[in-house]
């Protein structure tokens, strides 16, 4: 964990001035495992690590939940998957990838054995149900972060859409 990127200026008398931001503006350094995962998202590639029991972890586990050993084997998974559970967010907050009402969901991506938490752009809770098929919608400007997946959308609705 490192400090924030505070911008400062040196004024005429030689003293430093900097803005005061009342928050924890931490930036985190990701290790080799999450770095590979997040870099993959930038390139529209989703992959996970393979545990000692053969389970594919997406997002990747750095260490095996069973043995504690560092995980080094990777497996690609699809950008499509199935809704495992969902909830409705009627009032998006600052930082959400969507700024209109949307669903939160745990999604089992095809080829993964764990669930990924993300947003679903569904329009209304009435059309949603567990078990529905979804596919990733990629962000227009990737940044190497989890929000490079802007959200997921219902697969039948996404047919023919540019993605």
């Amino acid at each position, binding site marked *: 964990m490192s400090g924030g990127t505070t911008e400062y200026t040196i004024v005429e008398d030689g003293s430093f001035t900097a803005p005061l931001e*009342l*928050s*924890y503006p931490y930036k*985190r350094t*990701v290790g080799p495992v*999450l770095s590979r*995962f*997040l870099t993959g998202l930038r390139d529209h590639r989703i992959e996970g690590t393979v545990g000692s029991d053969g389970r594919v*972890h*997406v*997002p990747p*586990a750095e260490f095996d*939940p069973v043995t504690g050993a560092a995980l080094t084997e990777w497996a690609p998974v699809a950008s499509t998957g199935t809704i*495992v*559970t*969902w*909830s*409705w*967010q*009627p009032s998006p*907050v*600052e*930082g*959400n*990838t969507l700024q209109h009402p949307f669903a*939160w*969901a*745990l999604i089992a991506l095809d080829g993964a054995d*764990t*669930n*990924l*938490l*993300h*947003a679903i752009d569904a329009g209304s*809770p009435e059309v949603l149900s*567990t078990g529905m098929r979804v596919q990733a919608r990629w962000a227009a400007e990737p940044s190497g*972060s*989890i*929000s490079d997946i802007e959200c997921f959308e219902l697969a039948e609705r996404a047919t023919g859409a540019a993605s």
Partner: protein
Amino acid sequence: MRDVAIIASAQAINAATTTATPVEMLIPVVNQVLENAGIARADIGFWCHGSCDYMTGQPFSFVSAVDALGAWPPIIESHVEADGAFALYEAWIKIQTGEVDTALVFGNGRSSSGDINRILTLQLDPYVVGPLWPDDRSIAALQARACLESGVVTERAMAEVAMRNHHNAISNPYALRRGDHTIDELMAAARVADPLRELDCPAHADGVTAVIIAAGDRARSLAKRPAWIRGIDHRIESQNLGNRSMTTLPSAAAAAHKAGVGSDKIDVAELHAPYTHQELLLTSALGLGESTSINPSGGALCANPMMSAGLARFAEAAARIMNGSADRTLGHASSGPWMQQNLVCVLEGE
């Protein structure tokens, strides 16, 4: 092992908002618990505090709390970045070392300093979950739906939990939310984070709880009927929501087993389950049956003061022993999304 008991407690009346500073909130409660125990400040061997810098938005904010204790002559003091119940666990261990015989434990938090549902986002995985900014209710709602759809809870059972806790809170002067509701009324209410309704969600509050624990004969000399800690255990689950059970609480079950919950009947259980479906999961994980009265205080649904709601459960469970209305009670504290951490304490009268 040394026998250790809770011998006194005090709470602030939970408030939706307060203008008092953390120190101003602490002073009357710390003074009250000392008075309730009939012990002098100088006779406290160890002070242990639970609070969270993220609540105040200020690093090392807990240091100022020492102003409420009085640190001259020097005191032995510690802090956990957690609910005060976890500070009690540390104090219990401190007494086990034999260095001290008494400890004053306290937890405090002002939930109203910011948007609490957003502050709680900061306890999530900071790499692949936190950056999406899911709020606390949305995360709980994911678990609730999984429980509903798998059949381990029903909407009616959740409404019954809300009804019972809000009814019980009528007789709890410290509660923030209370009242009588019908099942029909509760089930007809609007969903705030589908499938959750407002009264399925905790009443976040500004609050303080303080407890004094003491060893052996010191406890017997300070209280008529100390609440003896017969078992205490803390278990944690993975931070990875996508690789956790949504319908069971293995950490709570493990803590209950280690604390010896099942070795005899529990008269009263005070559970720190912030959401209605979580109380149902927890009751099942702890192995509690019909003979146990759950949350006579109204629980965290009716007042969830961050960083002291768990310690308040311990205080309530101990009070039933000390007033003679129960012989064996359970205090529980939780922390993290989907009750990731569980601390279980079994209390008995002599």
